[in-house]
């Protein structure tokens, strides 16, 4: 076991998969010479060369569209969007092509593509560059959406995503790159579409993922001081969505708080709580609480931005409302 950062974990997964399979290649803006704008692919260009680490023009539609085309010829592209905000430029290719082709052509077309994208606010990048729109992508059948919250999961899930024959949107949170965690030395894979208990507890179930996991873990540590043991279910994958661990936990705690960084309105909390109401109604002992971003575009000013984003204190408060 080694303690490495999220950045290193993602980088290792890419490196190992590229070493393992020559069909895997990377394309995106500044992935090569620059080394990735978040330094994830630093050193890749020198090692793998420009054929496999392809700097692209600023052309998001073509980055995703051509990755789809290349995948149809049997390659396994990892297409990088510098930030998920630019996914909107490539929305047609993500939504109308990547998510549809396999189904629409009766299963003939197989597109093993991974779209890596950096999501999240909290860095004062203002409204267009700070979004956490992860849930939007989980709305479309045909696209897998993965968003790890620990280095361990980041590595194992990315390797599985690259080996998957389905299109996968792999979402990295901009403020988690420095987070450290234990990662095994040898090769391992984590399955896509499986939720995971990241912290056992008995008093309340916190359902979350990505940055929300970090907030929830910190909140749980504080809550434990007051004798409240929160169980944290990390979705890790928004599509497919694995609800079994959520139901199991909820049937034990009878209380749930759902934590996401994105806007609360029509968010993940809405989906998860609806499913709990549908599948575990008899177990509900308290209203389900949803924590998310205030319904405003994120402002540049630091104080305002932090006001709009969910905080550890919000999670603590949310739990205390129902426990």
């Amino acid at each position: 076991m080694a303690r490495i950062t999220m950045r290193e974990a993602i980088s290792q997964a890419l490196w190992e998969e590229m070493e393992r399979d020559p069909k895997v290649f990377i394309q995106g803006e500044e992935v090569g010479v620059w080394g990735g704008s978040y330094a994830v692919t630093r050193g890749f260009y020198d090692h793998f060369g420009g054929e496999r680490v392809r700097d692209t023009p600023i052309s998001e539609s073509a980055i995703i569209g051509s990755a789809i085309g290349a995948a149809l010829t049997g390659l396994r592209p990892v297409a990088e969007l510098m930030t998920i905000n630019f996914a909107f430029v490539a929305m047609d290719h993500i939504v109308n092509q990547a998510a549809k082709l396999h189904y629409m052509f009766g299963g003939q077309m197989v597109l093993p593509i991974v779209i890596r994208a950096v999501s999240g606010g909290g860095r004062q990048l203002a409204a267009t560059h700070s979004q956490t729109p992860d849930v939007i992508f989980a709305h479309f059948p045909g696209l897998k959406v993965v968003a790890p919250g620990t280095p361990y999961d980041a590595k194992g899930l990315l390797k599985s995503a690259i080996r998957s024959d389905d299109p996968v949107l792999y979402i990295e949170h901009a403020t988690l790159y420095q987070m450290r965690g234990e990662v095994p030395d040898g090769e391992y894979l984590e399955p896509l579409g499986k939720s995971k208990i990241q912290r056992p507890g008995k008093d309340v179930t916190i359902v979350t993922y990505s940055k929300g996991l970090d907030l929830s873990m910190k909140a749980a540590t504080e809550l434990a001081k007051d004798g409240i043991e929160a169980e944290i279910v990390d979705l890790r994958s928004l599509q497919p969505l694995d609800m079994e661990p959520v139901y199991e936990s909820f049937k034990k705690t009878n209380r749930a708080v759902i934590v996401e960084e994105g806007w609360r309105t029509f968010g993940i909390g809405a989906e998860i709580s609806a499913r709990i109401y549908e599948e575990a109604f008899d177990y509900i002992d308290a209203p389900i609480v949803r924590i998310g971003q205030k319904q405003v575009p994120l402002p540049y000013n630091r104080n305002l931005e932090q006001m709009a984003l969910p905080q550890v204190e919000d999670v603590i408060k949310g739990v205390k409302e129902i426990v």
Partner: protein
Amino acid sequence: MEKREHLDLYFQMVTIRRLEERAAELYQEGKIGGFLHLYIGQEAVSTGVISARQPEDRIITAYRDHGVAINCGIPARVVMAELMGKATGCSKGKGGSMHMADVTKNYFGGHAIVGSHLPLASGLALGDLYQHNPRVTVCMFGDGATNIGFFHEAVNLSKVWNLPILWLCENNQYGMGTAVERASAVPEIPQKAEGYGIPNSRVDGMNIMEVREAALEIIKKIREGGGPYFLEAVTYRYRGHSMGDPERYRKPEEIHHWQENDPIGIYRRYLVDRQLASEEELNQKDIDAQTEIDEAVQFAESSPEPAPESLYQDVFVEP
């Protein structure tokens, strides 16, 4: 041009330079956050072209926008306040470095999604064409932006509808770390305009008088109904793409080479050689610009933070 006007343009360029040097320091001190893209080296482009517009002409640009803001007449202290996210900033602290605007000055902002403002520019020009306003829209963007679909759609539309628009490409040789020839099928960017049948030319973007003269003539033609025009200004940014750029893609010698053609130095020599201004007068302008920036920082630092309730304001016009 009168001496007073020359001195004013010189003052604007130096003000931009000092403002941004100071902004870089404030960024290191943590008083400015987010992304900060400096315009240092490119000042002659916006100063030249904006000096050639009428006040009713519309300006729109990308995120490298502090210089444009100054040239459009936003006071340095208001720009500085926006950089520090204060309530007194031009976007009330909500936009930051990348999102400066003042619509009362017909400056429709800095825009952070590469190329996304080009279709908006087509719309500004359409609005004026539709309403028979004899106004011209000047749309500024980088070399890298000519590779995104937005560019091609907006430029094509401008020709199809004969829109009164000046497409001003600031070719500073790189889009982040990617050199023009590594990203653009044609290294000669005006060829892209040629492909859409739009008249075009190139100008030395380090030389303010060349930029200004070209822009004056072009804007006049556009105003007379000549339709869209594409101007490439060849320039260079001396600083990294934004703060924290590792700059692995270029050599220091290349930067030094371009620094020998510093746009402020070129203009200074031009003014002195033609006896349009004396060294003393220019030195005084340098001092004035420094004072302006010192005051701007003071103003910004002593300005209030936006009120908490402003978080919810301006989401919609109506409640």
